[in-house]
């Protein structure tokens, strides 16, 4: 009797890429729900727009490459990229900007490099960086959290704002939008106000911005879920957050009047979201255990540096993109000690 043969092993575990990506999507839910709660329906519309754009472009590119688009769309990686980008966008961003950013992420940052697994840069952050550089005004015009403004954007208001640029009824843009906490802090500090004075404002909560800090908390829950499920390693988020807190702490101790506390840095902006969902993108991150610690820590340091002395209020996207470039080199020099290696026996 004749049989087909295949290379060993002849058993296969039940993990697959779709499951990995699916779990990350699941882990985003609490944070997305918090965003929706504080910033209204614009968040959901952005997600829908981005997902639609991502699927469309993946389909187009795979067709152009003469391959079956279905397995590529089904692996959920493009949808995940879309979600990560949409979450990072202001909830009233004009629709075509969201679509443009997503298209750039999928077509240029991902597919032109060969698709999933071959992209050197985090596609979602590449799309975000493109939008931030191209449309700095729109990209920094965030709604104020509903706990601050007292108004949550309804579906039709958000729809009109996104698709026709119509300001929401209740008081127009000025009443509802404002600087993000990071932006606020930055502007006030540049006016030589002291932290103590700045924190008098109603936009501040316990650690960071009111509302914002709770979004961060819910993303933290999702992130811890991923660590627990072993979808991501603890190394990158832990080293990034510890490094950010340490360097912020040092400056805070030196002069708390002009340097916000470590807690502010952790719970404002995209630090938590970035640490668990952006920096951990396996394709573009460092992959050796020691390398991940270095990679995460350097992102944390860069975040602080750019926030404090750089030209943009938040820094996760640029820090991650910068470190993406360093990842292959870090990996090469942080190979683990091989079993039985005599030279590194003592490590």
């Amino acid at each position, binding site marked *: 009797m004749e049989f087909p043969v295949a290379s060993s092993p002849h058993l296969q575990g039940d993990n*697959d890429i779709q499951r990995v990506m699916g779990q990350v999507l699941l882990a985003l839910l609490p944070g997305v729900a918090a965003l929706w709660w504080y910033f209204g329906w614009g968040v959901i519309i952005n997600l829908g727009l981005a997902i639609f754009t991502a699927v469309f472009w993946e389909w187009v590119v795979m067709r152009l490459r003469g391959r079956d688009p279905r397995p590529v769309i089904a692996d959920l990686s493009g949808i995940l990229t879309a979600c990560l980008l949409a979450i990072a966008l202001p909830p009233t961003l004009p629709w075509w900007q969201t679509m443009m950013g997503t298209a750039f992420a999928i077509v240029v940052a991902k597919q032109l490099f060969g698709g999933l697994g071959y992209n050197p840069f985090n596609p979602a952050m590449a799309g975000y960086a493109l939008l931030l550089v191209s449309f700095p005004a729109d990209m920094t015009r965030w709604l104020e959290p509903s706990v601050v403004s007292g108004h949550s954007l309804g579906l039709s208001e958000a729809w009109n704002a996104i698709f026709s640029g119509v300001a929401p009824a209740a008081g127009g843009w000025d009443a509802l939008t404002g600087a993000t906490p990071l932006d606020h802090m930055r502007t006030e500090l540049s006016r030589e106000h002291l932290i103590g004075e700045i924190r008098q404002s109603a936009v501040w909560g316990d650690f960071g911005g009111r509302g914002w800090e709770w979004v961060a908390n819910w993303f933290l829950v999702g992130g811890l879920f991923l660590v627990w499920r072993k979808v991501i390693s603890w190394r990158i988020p832990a080293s990034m957050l510890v490094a950010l807190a340490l360097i912020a702490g040092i400056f805070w101790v030196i002069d708390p009047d002009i340097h916000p506390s470590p807690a502010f840095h952790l719970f404002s902006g995209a630090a938590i979201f970035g640490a668990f969902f952006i920096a951990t993108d396996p394709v573009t991150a460092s992959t050796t255990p020691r390398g991940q610690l270095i990679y995460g820590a350097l992102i944390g340091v860069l975040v602080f540096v750019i926030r404090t002395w750089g030209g943009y209020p938040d820094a996760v996207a640029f820090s991650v993109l910068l470190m993406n470039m360093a990842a292959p080199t870090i990996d090469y020099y942080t190979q683990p000690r091989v079993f039985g290696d005599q030279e590194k026996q003592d490590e």
Partner: protein
Amino acid sequence: MAEQPTPIWDFHGGLHVDDRKAPSKASPIREAVIPKRLQLPLQQHIGRHAEPVVRAGDPVLKGQLIARASDYVSANIHAPTSGMVSEIAELPIAHPSGLPALSIMMEADGKDRWAELPEPIPDYQEADPADLRERLRWAGIVGLGGAVFPTSVKTNVTGKQVDTLIINAAECEPYITCDDRLMQEQPAQVIAGADILRHIVGASRILIGIEDNKPEAITALRETIDTRGQRDIELRIVPTKYPSGGEKQLIYLLTGVEVPSHGLPLDVGMVCQNVATAVAVAEAILQGRPLISRVVTVTGQAVAQPGNLQTLIGTPVAELIEQCGGYLPGIHKLIMGGPMMGFGLHSDSVPVAKGSNCFIAATEAESPDPVKPSPCIRCGECVKVCPAQLLPQQLYWYARARDFDKTQDHHLFDCIECGCCAYVCPAHIPLVHYYRFAKTEIWAMEREREKAEHARRRHEFREARLKRLEAERKAKLRKKKEALAKKPASGKDPKKAAIEAAMQRVAAKKAGQEAADPASENEKN
């Protein structure tokens, strides 16, 4: 016997896979029927193939030498039963390549008559280890755990100090139960073989490493050790985790010592042998029998009666399956060895060889066909399970890019091909396949380089020789020229001298004539 809880050093990575041993675990070893025709490949071991010492038509007796080890690293082959050699030809064998190999084909006469065997050596403790090794060499014993390295070579520890003999009883691959049954049913032979091996290598203690999923075997061995009252044999139970039966992994589990990368257990004063090998050693020394049969597990969901069979080497796999009730509908693949490291057989017409510990007749559900791999997302799952502590994802990347220098930078040759990485890979990439590809490419390149080096040396030698000849020729010529140039100065050339002398004579004669005849002189003037 040592009952104190001994520390176990856990190795990095590994897998907890469903062991699937149940179907054959409870079935006692039974004798397989002697087949009508047996095929004995000349290459059933690592090293050089054996040279046949019989010809087609020769009658042979059971246990008679039919092919002789042709090199130091090689192994004898004996007739598993009595009968007649029918041909020596290229025939299909159990090999991943599916290529045929030179084999001795014999017809059994059914009488199973023994040849004259060498004397048993019951007092092996008094014997010279070299003599015992010579007996193992005669018996054609090779590592029966699957590695098939000649045991007489592995136990040759001349010049090295060995303190520990490790008996590998882990049997960590799913499905396989032949060693488990052997330990349950012949614990005395296992321990006797271990003691002989210990004497051969001069070790002071024996450590037996066994996974905790074999409680019956553990009890049997423990009783035997207690009965023998040997305090220097320690049974150590290790947690069930694949690949705890990997040689270097087991040594680490039991002793906390890492065998050096690219090194051998001998480098850290240890020798490791499998339990089935120990039994074969006991038979060779205590009964004077060569290795002509082994216990084979036949299992899988597509075979009717899974079991463990004492099988003559050379038995066609199809006949073995037949004796286990044949295939069930749904048979999809036939695997030799374990499901993690074994290889697929193209056909069941191939024979059982010395290294055949298990045949798995698998349905598609239990061993699915490979799916189309997705791209590597560098998730690092493979890093977590790699017992050699490698970076499988980087190795894959470089192997794929044919960047073989980088694969070696990433310690490709420390890979034991255990398959853990491929098992957990969410992209279903056949990682081990890539590593084998890279290894064979590197070996091929090295062979090419050696060839080129050889050719270069030959070319240089030829050039040098031609140059030397040319120089010699020139030197000769120069000498001749010099000699020619020197001669007129030192002594006249005889020819020239003769001519000159002749001319002088002629001149003198003329002068004489002129003096005698002045008129003619005048006339001339």
